[in-house]
C-alpha cells in the first residue's frame, strides 16, 4: 500500500499517503519508518512554539518563503512544514487552521505543508510527529519547520525533537514574572518577539532580556568554579555557551526576517562547532528508544497477564485489601514467571 521507493524518489502523493499511515500508527506506517530510517538524519529541524495567537503560523509562512527564495544567492532549499493543532478532548475532532496563514507558499512544489491534530498528546506535539519528521527527512526535505500547538507554559516536547527551537512571544501577554517561570522560555534557542509593531514591545523585550541574564550568568562565573562546570563542552572555554538572541519581527510584512534567519544559521553553526548537534541527536534517539521500549514492555506484560488478573487486583484495591503499591508488585510478580 505504501511505496517507500516512490517516496525516496520524490513522489508527493506517495509521501502524503505514507504520512497518513505513520500518523495513524498503523503497521504499514511502522514498517515504512523502518525502511526510511537509514535515510534520515540529514534535515535541519526547526521548532516554532509559543502561546496561541502570537503569530507562529505567519512566521512559519515567512520562514518557508525565505528558504525557498533566498536573498543571499544560495540555492533554494526544499521545505517541509508540520503544523500541529489541538484535538478536541471530547469528540476527538479538530479544526486545523494553520494553512490559512501559509498562502505565500502556494504554487511552489518545493514546499510540503502537513497539518496534524494532537490526538490527545499533551506536550505540544502529536505522538506521531517525530515519525512524520523522519519521513520528510528521508524524502529529501532539507528544512523541516515544526509548529507546535499554541503552547502555554509546559509544552516543551519540541525542544527534544528540534535542533533549533524558536519561542515566539508577542507584546502584552504577561509581565516579568511570566518570564522567570520555569518552562517554555527555558527551551528557547532563539526568542522571537513577533507583532513588534504593536505597543508594549519594549516592555516585553526588557522582561525577556532580564530573564536571560538570570538564566545565563556571564561566562567567567563558569571558569571561576574550575573545570567541573564545563565538562559538558569538550572544547572547554574555547566555544562560548549559546546565549539566546532576542529578535523582533513583524511576520505580516517580513520585517526582522533576514536577521532571524541569520540567528538560526548562527545557532546551527554553534551546534556543529560545540558538538551539541551530535548530543541532541543522541538524546533525541534515546528518547525515541525509551518510548518504544516502554510501549513494547507494557505490551509484553499485558500479553503475559492471566485474564482477569487485572480486574481481580483492582477489586481487592477497591476493598482496601491491597494498596496501589502492593497491587503493582502483585501484578508484576504474577506476570514475570
Amino acid at each position, binding site marked *: 500500500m505504501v511505496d517507500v521507493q516512490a517516496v525516496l524518489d520524490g513522489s*508527493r*502523493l506517495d509521501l*502524503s*499517503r505514507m*504520512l*497518513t499511515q505513520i500518523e*495513524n*500508527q*498503523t*503497521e504499514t*506506517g511502522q514498517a515504512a519508518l523502518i525502511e526510511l530510517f537509514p535515510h534520515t538524519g540529514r534535515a535541519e529541524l526547526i521548532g516554532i512554539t509559543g502561546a496561541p495567537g502570537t503569530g507562529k503560523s505567519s512566521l512559519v509562512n515567512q520562514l518557508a518563503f525565505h528558504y525557498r527564495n533566498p536573498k543571499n544567492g544560495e540555492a533554494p532549499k526544499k521545505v517541509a512544514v508540520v503544523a500541529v493543532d489541538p*484535538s*478536541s478532548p471530547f*469528540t*476527538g*475532532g*479538530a*479544526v*486545523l*487552521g494553520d*494553512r*490559512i496563514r501559509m*498562502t505565500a507558499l*502556494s*504554487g511552489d512544489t518545493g514546499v*510540503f*505543508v*502537513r*497539518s496534524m*491534530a494532537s*490526538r490527545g498528546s499533551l506536550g505540544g506535539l502529536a505522538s506521531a510527529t517525530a515519525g512524520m519528521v523522519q519521513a520528510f527527512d528521508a524524502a529529501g526535505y532539507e528544512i523541516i519547520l515544526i509548529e507546535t500547538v499554541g503552547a502555554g507554559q509546559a509544552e516543551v516536547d519540541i525542544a527534544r525533537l528540534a535542533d533549533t527551537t524558536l519561542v515566539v512571544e508577542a507584546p502584552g501577554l504577561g509581565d516579568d514574572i511570566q518570564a522567570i517561570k520555569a518552562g517554555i522560555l527555558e527551551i528557547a534557542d532563539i526568542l522571537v518577539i513577533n507583532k513588534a509593531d504593536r505597543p508594549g514591545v519594549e516592555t516585553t523585550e526588557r522582561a525577556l532580556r532580564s530573564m536571560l541574564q538570570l538564566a545565563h550568568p556571564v561566562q567567567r562565573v563558569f571558569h571561576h568554579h574550575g573545570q567541573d562546570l564545563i565538562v559538558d563542552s569538550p572544547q572547554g572555554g574555547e566555544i562560548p555557551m549559546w546565549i539566546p538572541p532576542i529578535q523582533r519581527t513583524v511576520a505580516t510584512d517580513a520585517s526582522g526576517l533576514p536577521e532571524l534567519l541569520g540567528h538560526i544559521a548562527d545557532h546551527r553553526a554553534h551546534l556543529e562547532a560545540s558538538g551539541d548537534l551530535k548530543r541532541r541527536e543522541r538524546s533525541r534517539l534515546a528518547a525515541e528508544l525509551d518510548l518504544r521500549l516502554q510501549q513494547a514492555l507494557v505490551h509484553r506484560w499485558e500479553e503475559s497477564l492471566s485474564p482477569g488478573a487485572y480486574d481481580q487486583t483492582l477489586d481487592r484495591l477497591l476493598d482496601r485489601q491491597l494498596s496501589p503499591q502492593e497491587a503493582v508488585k502483585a501484578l508484576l510478580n504474577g506476570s514475570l514467571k
Partner: protein
Amino acid sequence: MSEEKIRVIVAKPGLDGHDRGAKVVARALRDAGMEVIYTGLRQTPEMIAEAALQEDAHAIGLSILSGAHMAIVPRIMELLKENGQENVKVFLGGIIPDEDIPKMTELGIAGVYGPGTSTELIVEDIRKLVLG
C-alpha cells in the same frame, strides 16, 4: 494503538467573503470527530488541489456563493484527477441553482447542500461516502 480519522478539507474558492457557512460546517464536522483542515478564503482551484494532496484528505467541502461554481468546480475535479486523487469525495455548499445540480453531479460531485441543510445530514453523508 492505531486510529484512523476522517480528514476533510473545508475551503472557500473564489472571491466572495461569506465564510459563515464554511465555518459552521467545519465545526459540525469537528464535533463529529473528524479532522478538518480549514484553508480559509479566496482559494484558487490549484491551492485546494494542492492542499488535498499534501493533507491526504478523504473529502473536500467547497463553499461557493459567488456563482462561479461552473468555472471552479470542473477545474478542481480536473486537478484532483491529474494528481491521482480522483478517489477524494467532493461536496458543495452555498448557492448552487437547481438547474446546475445535475451538471455538478455529472462532474463527480458527491453532494450539494444548499441553505437550510442540517449539519447532521452532511456528517452522515460524508461518513457513508468515506467509510464506504
